[in-house]
């Protein structure tokens, strides 16, 4: 988080001196006050809803918010897009169920343990996925869901196979609405822990390294950031939180089925929500989950009889990727800025665009290395070598 007063004081020297912040300010109390109102709204939600159905939809949206935020620990901080996070969700869910079934553990102990087991499983997966930069990560992430789908379908004795697995209720004899209420708060608590972790990581050196990886991995590594270890750590955090979200879902929902736990679509929702909200912001994935989750629930309830929701998801994802890859928050911000009283000179530019620009600048300067920018290429080739 930037310090605004610093900006005010120090800007103004260079010819092209731009500023990180815009011009207008807000009263200092608005932020905590806004936050307090939002928190109060969330906490009062179960009391405000007109019926149990809306409450159950709220639980679903809360679980989406958890998964999208968890996803963003990897996808947001490092820019590595995982389409297979449903794998961790499913593993967490099944892990919880199986631990309760086979070891008769206390449900929430099983839940906690299940997340830790996923953490351990993720280590080799992460190492393999991060061997080759970019492409292999995507391939492994999708493959991991597909393989787990197969395994959980085939390994009937252990997972219940295609027949699914029934997870006993942690709170027996509760009426359904009360059950929803408890789990709404549990999901919100889990989300709060994630957001807190996010906040700590975001301002830490670790977080600075991760963000550097997102911007320019080669450069980060040249500056001494142990990129693989950092990526792996982010992946582990992300996977574990996703698993906990999945485990919580299992305790709430009760019936697990490989096709729905290990579904590509669930992973796609996480990506869509996080990207739509904006992965660079603490609350971005949460906003995305609230918007997309509510819309999905509404669409499915109202227009469930077609595959329209698939088309809708696809188009929305395409639009986000093509036109606002940083999410609605920056997009809305840009709009606000344009409409706002003061024009700002901030240009959002990526490392590669900058490289292009610099290449052009260097070419004008006359002496670009004639081997066709082998500096850039050399490092690109290095990727494939999988150091």
């Amino acid at each position: 988080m930037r310090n605004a007063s610093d900006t005010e004081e120090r800007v103004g020297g260079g010819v092209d001196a731009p500023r990180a912040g815009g011009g207008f300010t807000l009263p200092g109390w608005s932020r905590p006050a806004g936050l307090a109102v939002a928190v109060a709204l969330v906490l009062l939600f179960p009391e405000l809803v007109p019926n149990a159905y809306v409450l159950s939809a709220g639980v679903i949206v809360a679980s989406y918010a958890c998964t999208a935020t968890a996803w963003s620990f990897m996808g947001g901080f490092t820019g590595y897009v995982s389409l297979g996070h449903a794998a961790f969700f499913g593993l967490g869910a099944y892990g919880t169920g199986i631990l309760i079934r086979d070891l008769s553990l206390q449900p929430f102990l099983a839940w906690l343990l299940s997340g830790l087991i996923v953490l351990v499983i993720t280590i080799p997966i992460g190492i393999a996925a991060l061997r080759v930069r970019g492409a292999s990560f995507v391939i492994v992430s999708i493959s991991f869901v597909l393989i787990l789908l197969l395994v959980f379908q085939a390994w009937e004795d252990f997972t219940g196979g295609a027949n699914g697995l029934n997870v006993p209720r942690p709170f027996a004899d509760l009426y359904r609405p009360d059950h929803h209420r408890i789990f709404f708060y549990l999901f919100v608590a889990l989300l709060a822990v994630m957001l807190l972790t996010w906040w700590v990581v975001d301002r830490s050196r670790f977080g600075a390294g991760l963000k550097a990886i997102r911007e320019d991995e080669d450069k980060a590594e040249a500056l001494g950031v142990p990129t693989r270890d950092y990526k792996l750590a982010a992946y582990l955090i992300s996977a574990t939180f996703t698993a906990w979200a999945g485990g919580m879902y299992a305790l709430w929902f009760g019936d697990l089925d490989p096709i729905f736990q290990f579904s590509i679509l669930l992973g796609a929702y996480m990506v869509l929500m996080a990207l739509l909200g904006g992965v660079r912001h603490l609350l971005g994935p949460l906003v995305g989950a609230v918007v997309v989750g509510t819309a999905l629930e509404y669409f499915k309830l109202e227009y469930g009889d077609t595959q329209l929701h698939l088309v809708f998801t696809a188009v929305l994802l395409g639009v986000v990727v093509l036109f606002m890859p940083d999410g609605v928050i920056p997009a809305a911000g840009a709009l606000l800025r344009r409409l706002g009283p003061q024009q700002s000179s901030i240009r959002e530019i990526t490392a590669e665009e900058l490289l292009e620009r610099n290449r052009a600048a260097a070419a004008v300067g006359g002496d670009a290395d004639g081997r066709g920018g082998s500096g850039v290429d050399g490092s690109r080739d290095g990727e494939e070598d999988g150091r």
Partner: protein
Amino acid sequence: MAKRRRRAVSWAAALSASVLLVTACSGDPRGGDEDVVLIGVSLPLTGDFSEPGKGVQRGYEAWVESVNRDGGLLGRRVELKILDDQSAADRVVQDYEALIALHEVDLVFGPFSTRLVIPSARVAEEYGMLFVEPAGAANEVFEQGFENLFYAAPAIANDHYDHLADHILSLPEDERPQTVAVASMDDPFAQSTAYGLRDRLREGGLEIVVDEEYPPNTTDFSSIAAKINASGADMVVGGTQYQDAVNIIVQLRQLDYQPKLAAFSTAPTNPEFSAAIGSRTEGIVSPTGYTPDAPYPSNVEFVELYREMFGTPPAEDEANAYTTGQVVAAAVEAVGCAEQGECQERLVDWLHENEVETIVGPLSWDGQGRPEGAHLIQQYVDGEIRIVLPGETGEAEFLYPKPEW
């Protein structure tokens, strides 16, 4: 600072938008109409089970038509509220949640496919609703401890082939098939049918030489077929839905495998089955819980009405759905109420104690909701599917050994 403000603004916008959405879907659903019995049901109208799902929908619609022609339930007009669950378990639960809590339906009917029955039955159970269902035939449905659940068909899946097993085992030792190959979809219903038969034949002394299982989304059956072919089994049993049976048969034909007896669940009753496997249907066996030719009085009525509405004779899924309606209607008329709350308990109690006349004959249930009957066995004879077992009700002679396909 601007960034913060931007963030706060868009966050607030998103939150209020979603609150609006949530309240939008929670408007009064009943429209205050008290003269209607609203019945909620969730069906797979899209997704893996959309075909049978639509069949169930037609069956329910036929039943509603029939009830309303006769003056409705308790004098109130019957209306259906159908939601699509896309064959997804998480959806089916949300659907029943919405039907009961949001749309405040008076009664619910069950969805299609065993794997969806269990989660949705749990929702109904936890809201205290009566849950009569047309599709959850697998044994595990009845092992969940549900007290409100009733299966509206003559027999649970494990017993579907009972008549066939009886017949085979009644043959002299040297005429019987000696070896059996089994391939089943990993689906509770399909498995229960095939494994019911497999276990009876094994107990009867036949040798099970192939026992394969494949996930529901399998499309490549060449190696399963190769294995069955290599075993040279006398008899092949398929625990199938529809397309998987077609694929297995085509692959078996590609390998020139000729069994003496071939039994597949569900698929052979499909009207497109014959064309799909190249019209080589002669001798293929399948169990069914329903035949349009059954003589029960309400069935004659049903077939006539169904033909009038849809132009074709009803199939098993349609019949089971219609039966579901009949069962619930019987309880409602007998108890004299149809709304949420304590009434549901009385409906459940009544069904546990009484027998109901339906289009598939009289039905009664044990404590877990299992119907206590058996299925008929049908077979393609002279190009048409006919009831062949049990012998006394058969429309044709059981054809054995099966001609080449």
